[in-house]
């Protein structure tokens, strides 16, 4: 099958590859997918606690070219948005931007799941911290 130029570009030059410190309270980590399904995405965000803005995002993906491109694009979309804005990102934006064919739509769904999982991890951690601050 032929890949779109944008998928090829993200595959050949993936953006924001890497890992952030999972233990950092400002970092949210999402790990979605499963090895036996053929794709696993790890997506991390680092949030500025004062502004609520995502200042950094990193990913690592085991999966096909479209899965790699979807998560690479997701990290680009996340940076500079607030956590609440990031929650609005829909997989269809990724599909359109990368011109994904129907059989690859699940890759974009997985990327959206990864975003949501990372944010929910961040919120859970922030919530615990806030709780701790209140009781102190």
């Amino acid at each position: 099958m032929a890949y779109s130029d944008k998928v090829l570009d993200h595959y050949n030059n993936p953006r924001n590859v890497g890992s952030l410190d999972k233990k950092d309270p400002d970092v949210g980590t999402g790990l979605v997918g499963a090895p036996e399904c053929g794709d696993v995405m790890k997506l991390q965000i680092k949030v500025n606690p004062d502004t609520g803005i995502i200042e950094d995002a990193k990913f690592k993906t085991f999966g096909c070219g479209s899965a790699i491109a979807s998560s690479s694009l997701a990290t680009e979309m996340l940076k500079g948005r607030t956590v609440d804005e990031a929650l609005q990102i829909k997989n269809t934006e990724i599909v359109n931007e990368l011109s994904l064919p129907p059989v690859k739509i699940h890759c974009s769904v997985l990327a959206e799941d990864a975003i949501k999982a990372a944010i929910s991890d961040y919120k859970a951690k922030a919530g615990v911290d806030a709780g701790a601050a209140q009781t102190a």
Partner: protein
Amino acid sequence: MLKFPIYLDNHATTPMDPRVLDAMLPYFQDLFGNAASRNHSFGWAAEEAVEKARKQVAALIGATSKEIVFTSGATESNNLAIKGAFEMYAQKGNHIITAATEHKAVLDTCKRLEKHGARVTYLAVRPDGLIDLDLLRESITDKTILVSIMYGNNEIGTVQDIPEIGRICRERGVLLHTDATQAAGKIPVNVNSDNIDLLSLSGHKMYGPKGVGALYVRRKNPRVQLTAQIDGGGHERGMRSGTLNVPGIVGLGKAAELSAQLMPEESVKHAAMRDRLQSLLTAELDEVYINGTMERRLPHNLNISFAYVEGESLLMGINDIAVSSGSACTSATLEPSYVLKALGAGDDLAHSSIRFGIGRFTTEEEIDYTAAKVTDVVKKLRELSPLYEMVKEGIDLTKVEWSAH
């Protein structure tokens, strides 16, 4: 000098040998006759060419020319062998034994027959890809009419012990069909010493043309009869009607003759290239797994899983090399290879597998380039792989709660 793209997918199909093309060309125009035309020279010339090809194909597998039925390819041969035997021997029984790692042309044929009253046993294979001969023995009942086990596997290249399987079938009075599409012309196959009753082969897997194949049907000890699946003018001793594809058959014959001649030299050369590719890849990369036994394997096959790297993304990175993957993303069904799954290695390794198929025109330079390129891309993709990172951190991936989707 390397020429791109490099073709290492010779299990899918092979390029035609120029000598095969030369042999075929006259039969498209000057010698265009119908081999069934009995009363003029056009027909005689075509018939003579077909009979020569029949001898060439027979010689490749130790058969006699009267035992060769020309078909459109191995898929048709498999269909004719299994459906034809099922119908013909309905009085004797309805039980067929095959294996989980067979080609779909065998498995789906068996599945269809199940709707028509067949009882089919799909033998599991051992982790090395071979069937358990004791399991085969135990599976044969007095209702068993046919055992269909492929000679060499199209994905993992494993070579079943057909001579022994044939002996077991002969002892129990059961017919043996073997799909020898990948093995014929690559390793010695002999219908007599291997006790084979029915054998399928294809032209385009041995440097011949597409759209032509053959079914060997034993004529003596025992005489095997099949119910025709295509009715018409009664060609091919009534077993396969339809005007003979004379140029294709000539090509198949020539391809069979060349393969028989070249086999001693080619099988050694290809095995050496295969072993070189394997050692280059394993020297540079960790967590590389060979799928299927190396002990009994087609000389031109290597099937490797590069753990923590998904197959399609690897193919994308080596886009100047033509190979196949068992990954779900590369299949029409979006399911990972059922052959690799049958080995019990886990779906994750099926997703990470690449099949290399060496051919007559492969060069050592191409092998070296391929090894270097694959190594580079696997390393790059492992940098990108959360799984590789987790394993390096000491996390046991089997203990992680994955969100299967």
